[in-house]
C-alpha cells in the first residue's frame, strides 16, 4: 500500500462493512435465507391461449381456424390444457411437480395499451399511474434482512426496470462480464477501480457515498465469481441470444452465493398481430427460445432449484378470435408460469372462465378470474416470507383465501 489513505485495506477490513456497521442495521438471526425469486416479463403481451393451449375446448379451434395448435401437436398436461409443442422442454418439470401454469390471470384494469398495462403490472397498482416505485422494490424496502449484499436485487438489462425502481438498492447489470470499470488490461482496470474507490470513499457524501460503496463491493465480489469462466452444469444448454444469456447469468449469480434474492429479466417479441403461426412460425420460435432457456436454467441449477421460484408475467393476453392477418390483437387475461422447487406444480391453477362469448371480457377476450396481485402476493408471502403485503400492493387487500395456490404449503 502506498499511502495512508489506503490504510483500511492494509488491515484487511472492507470499508463497506465498517460503514454498514456504523449504520447499525440489526444483524439477521440464524442462517442466511437463500430463497430466491426470478421474475421474467414477456413484453408485448404473450398469446396465453397458444402458450398454454385449451385443446379440450372446441371453441378454441372454432375461433382460430388458421392459428390454433392442432390437438395432435399439443403436449397434453391435464386432458384439457397442454403446452405448445415448442415448450416441450418444460414437460419433465411439469411431470416432476415443479411447474404450474395459471390461466385467465391479469389486471383488473381494462387497458389494452402495452405501455399502460406493463406500467401497472410493474408498479403493482393497476389504474394508478403516479405510483413512484415498483412492487419488487417495495418488497425490498419493507424487508431489510438481505441488505448486506449489493446483489440482493438485480435486473439483467441496460436499465433498471419499473418493477425494481424505488428507494431500495438494486443493480442493473446488462452483462456480468462488463459490470465494473473498463480498461484494456486487468492490472489497469484494478488500478482504476481502486482509484475511484478511494475518490468516493474520501470525497463522496450521501447517496453518492452509499451507492458507490455498493458498486465497489459488487465489483469486488464479481471478481471472485469470475463471470468469464462460467460453465453451466449438468449439460444445460442455454439458447443463444439475450434471454438465454440473462438466464445463464442469473443461474451463475445464484450459484456464486452472492446473496441474490430477487432477479428480473425481460424477454421480448410477443406482439403477434400478423402471421403468428400455430405449431410452427413466429410465436413458436419465441416459445422455443423461452422454454429452452427455462429448461436449461432448471437443469443448470440442479439441487439449487429447491430454493428458487421463477414467475413469468405478461401485460395482457390476446384476442380469443384470430384476426384478419392470421394474428391476434390485444386482449385481456393471459397465462403465467410458476417454476421451481417450492412450486405446487403439475397442475393448472386459477379458475378457467371458458371461451364462451358470454363469459368473455367485453365479449371478446379471456376474462380475468385471478388478479395478478393475488399470485404475486402469494409468492412474496409464502416463498419469500413477506409479511406486509398491504404496503407492497397499496390499495389492494391481499387475501390468502384468494391465493391461487402456486407455492406448496
Amino acid at each position, binding site marked *: 500500500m*502506498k*499511502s495512508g*489513505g489506503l490504510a483500511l485495506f492494509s488491515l484487511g477490513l472492507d470499508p463497506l462493512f465498517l460503514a454498514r456497521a456504523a449504520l447499525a442495521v440489526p444483524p439477521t438471526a440464524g442462517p442466511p435465507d437463500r430463497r430466491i425469486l426470478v421474475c421474467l416479463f414477456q413484453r408485448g403481451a404473450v398469446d396465453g391461449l397458444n402458450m398454454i393451449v385449451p385443446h379440450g375446448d372446441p371453441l378454441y379451434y372454432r375461433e382460430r381456424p388458421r392459428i390454433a395448435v392442432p390437438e395432435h401437436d399439443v403436449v397434453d398436461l391435464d386432458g384439457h390444457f397442454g403446452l405448445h409443442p415448442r415448450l416441450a422442454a418444460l414437460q419433465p418439470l411439469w411431470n416432476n411437480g415443479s411447474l404450474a401454469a395459471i390461466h385467465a390471470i391479469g389486471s383488473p384494469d381494462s387497458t389494452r*395499451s402495452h*405501455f*399502460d398495462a406493463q*406500467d401497472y403490472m410493474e408498479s403493482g397498482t393497476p389504474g394508478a*399511474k*403516479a405510483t413512484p416505485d415498483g412492487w419488487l422494490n417495495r418488497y425490498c424496502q419493507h424487508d431489510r434482512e438481505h441488505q448486506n449484499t*449489493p446483489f440482493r436485487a438485480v435486473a439483467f438489462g*441496460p*436499465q*433498471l426496470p419499473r418493477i425494481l*425502481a424505488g*428507494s431500495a*438498492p*438494486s*443493480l*442493473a*447489470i446488462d452483462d456480468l462480464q462488463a*459490470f*465494473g*470499470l*473498463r*480498461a484494456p488490461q486487468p492490472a489497469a482496470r484494478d488500478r*482504476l477501480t481502486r*482509484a*475511484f474507490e*478511494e*475518490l*468516493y470513499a*474520501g*470525497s*463522496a457524501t*450521501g*447517496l*453518492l*457515498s452509499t*451507492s*458507490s460503496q*455498493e*458498486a465497489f463491493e*459488487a465489483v469486488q465480489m464479481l471478481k471472485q465469481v469470475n463471470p468469464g469462466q462460467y460453465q453451466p452444469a449438468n449439460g444445460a444448454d442455454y439458447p*443463444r*441470444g439475450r434471454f438465454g444469456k440473462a438466464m445463464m447469468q442469473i443461474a451463475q449469480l445464484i450459484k456464486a452465493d452472492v446473496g441474490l434474492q430477487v432477479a428480473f429479466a425481460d424477454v421480448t*417479441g410477443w406482439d403477434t398481430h*400478423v*402471421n403468428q*403461426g400455430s405449431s*410452427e*412460425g*413466429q410465436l413458436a*420460435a*419465441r416459445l422455443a*427460445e423461452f422454454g429452452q432457456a427455462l429448461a436449461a436454467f432448471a437443469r443448470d441449477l440442479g439441487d439449487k432449484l429447491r430454493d428458487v421460484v421463477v414467475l413469468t408475467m405478461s401485460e395482457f393476453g390476446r384476442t380469443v378470435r384470430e*384476426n*384478419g*392477418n*392470421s394474428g391476434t390483437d390485444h386482449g385481456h387475461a393471459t397465462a403465467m408460469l410458476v417454476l421451481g422447487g417450492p412450486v405446487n406444480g403439475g397442475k393448472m391453477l386459477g379458475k378457467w372462465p371458458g371461451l364462451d362469448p358470454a363469459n368473455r371480457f367485453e365479449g*371478446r377476450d379471456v376474462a380475468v378470474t385471478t388478479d395478478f396481485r393475488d399470485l404475486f402476493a402469494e409468492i412474496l408471502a409464502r416463498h419469500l416470507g413477506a409479511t406486509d403485503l398491504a404496503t407492497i400492493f397499496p390499495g389492494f387487500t391481499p387475501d390468502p383465501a384468494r391465493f391461487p395456490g402456486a407455492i406448496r404449503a
Partner: protein
Amino acid sequence: MKIWAVASLCGALGASPLVAASTQAPLLTPRDSALHALNRLAYGPRPGEVDRVAAAGVMQWIDRQLSPDKIDDAALTERERQFKILEYDAGELAGMYVDARRERQEREASRDRDSVGARHAAPLPQRMDPSQDRGRRLAGELQELAVVRATLSERQLYEVMVDFWINHFNVFLAKGADRFLTPSYIEATIRPRALGRFADLLIATAQSPAMLFYLDNWESVAPGSTPPQAMRLRARPLFGRAPQFGRPPLFDPGRDPMRADSQRQRALERMPKGVNENYARELLELHTLGVEGGYTQQDVIDVARIFTGWSMGRPQQGGDFEFHEWAHDYGEKVVMGVTFPAGHGRDEGMCLLKLLANHPATLHHVSRQLCQRFVNDDPPDGCVDDAVAAWKRTEGDIREVLRAIFTSPDFWAAPNVRAKIKTPLEFVVSAARALGADPDPTPRLAQVVARLGEPLYLHVAPDGYPEREAAWVNSGALLDRMNVAVALAAGRLPGVAVSIDAIVPATADPAQLIAAVNAQLLGGTMSENTKAVIGHQLSDISDPLQARALAIGLAIGGPEFQRQ
C-alpha cells in the same frame, strides 16, 4: 466579495428583489456564484466561462439568459442544418413510418409463407429489419439534436427550460403515432413557448396531437355518440362498397366480400365508445394542480367529459388537432365547484384550461417543481413563495417566475449550492462542455445519455424524468458514469471530439496538472482527498498525456463532478 456586491454590478435589474436577498449575505464569491448559476441555469460552464461570467456580473448574465431571443446563436443554427428531422412535418414523418411498417409486414408475410424457412429459422435479430432501422434512426436524430442543442447553444437557460417542459408535459416517443408526432411537439408546441406564459403552453399541449395521442384523449367520446364514419359503415350494403365521401375509407375492403364484412365489423368494434379519463387525470395531477390539488374522482370524470371531442385527424397521417362536435358531451359539468353550463362545445375546454392555469394549486405545484429543478430536490418554502408571488403578479409569465427564483435568497443559500446531483443528460452534456467538446451529428452521444439511464423522450410514464437524486444514483449507473468519464478524457468516447490541449495543457508536473484540472473542470471545488488520490495515482506515470487523461477521467468520474 459577497453576492450583494455582485448584485450592485447589475444595473439591468434596477430595484430588483435582490435587495431583499442582500440581507441574507450569502457567502459566495463572484466566481462561486458564477459557477453556481452556470451549473443550474446552464449545462455547466465551458472553459473559461466561470471567469467571464464572474467578470461581467452574474446577475447580468442571468438577465441575458432570460431574454434568449437577444442572444446570438448562429453557430447552433448552422449545426441544426445537419438534422434532417427538422425538415419534415408530421405528415411526412407519418408517411415514412407507415411505409416502413407496411414493408415490414409484407416481408414477414412472405417469410411466413416460406414454410421451410419459417420452420427452423430463429427469429431475425431486430437490427436486421431495415424499417425498424429507419424508425430508430429518426428517433436517434431527435435525441441527438437535444444533446447538441444542450451542449452548444448560447441560450442555455432556454434549453434547460425546454427540457423542463418536455418532462413536465411528457410524451412517450415509442407509443404508436407519437413516433412521428413528437418532433413537431418539440419544435412547434414546446420550444416556442418555453419562456412564455404558462397558460399558452398548457393550451398548446392540450391541443397537440402528440399529447392527445399519448394520453388517449383523441379517442375519448361521449357515450352513445356515433362517428360519421360508423354511420357510413353501417349504411353500406352487405357485400358491397358504399360511395366515397371525399375522405379515404377507414379500410380498403378489397375484393373479398366476406373479408370486407369482417373488416367492417372490426372497424366498428374499434370505434371509441366512451369517455377516456387518461388525459383528464394527468392534466390535473401532473400538468396543473398536483396530486394534492384538491380534486375528486368526480372532477376527473367531468374534466374528461369537457374534453370529449378534443381529437385529431387520422394519427397515421400525422393529423392535426380537430374538435369533433359529434363526440362532445354537451351536458352540464362541475369541476372543483365551478359549473360549466350545458350546451357548450370546444369553448368550455379552453375556459377550463385557463381556470386551471391560474388556480392557486397550479401556481404552487408548478412553482415548486421549478424550484426543485433550480434550487433543491426538496425546495425551501421561501423560493416557492417568491415564484408564486411573481406568477400572480405577472399572470403566469414564466420568465418572471424564473427571475423571482434566481433572485430569491434560497437560490444562493449555501446549503443549496452543489446540493443537486446531475441527471445523466446534465452529466454527459456538462462533461462535454467542460472539455470544450464538439458532438457529431450521429446519435452516439445521445446513446451515452441513454445508457446512463435517460433515453430522451422515452420516459414511459406521464410524469417525465424525475428531479430526485435517488432516481439517478445507483451502483451500476455510477460505474457507468466513471467509464464514460475515463473514455471521454482519453478521447475514446464515440460521438464527440474533445480538444483538451487548450484547456488543460499536458505537463510533467503533477501539482500543476491537478491545479489546472481543479480550476478548469471542477471550478475549484476539488476536495483535499480528491487531490491526494489523483496525486497518488500520478506518482508513477511518466507520460504527460497519460497522466492528464487519468487526472481528467478521475475528476469527471469522481464525486465532485456528479454534483451541481
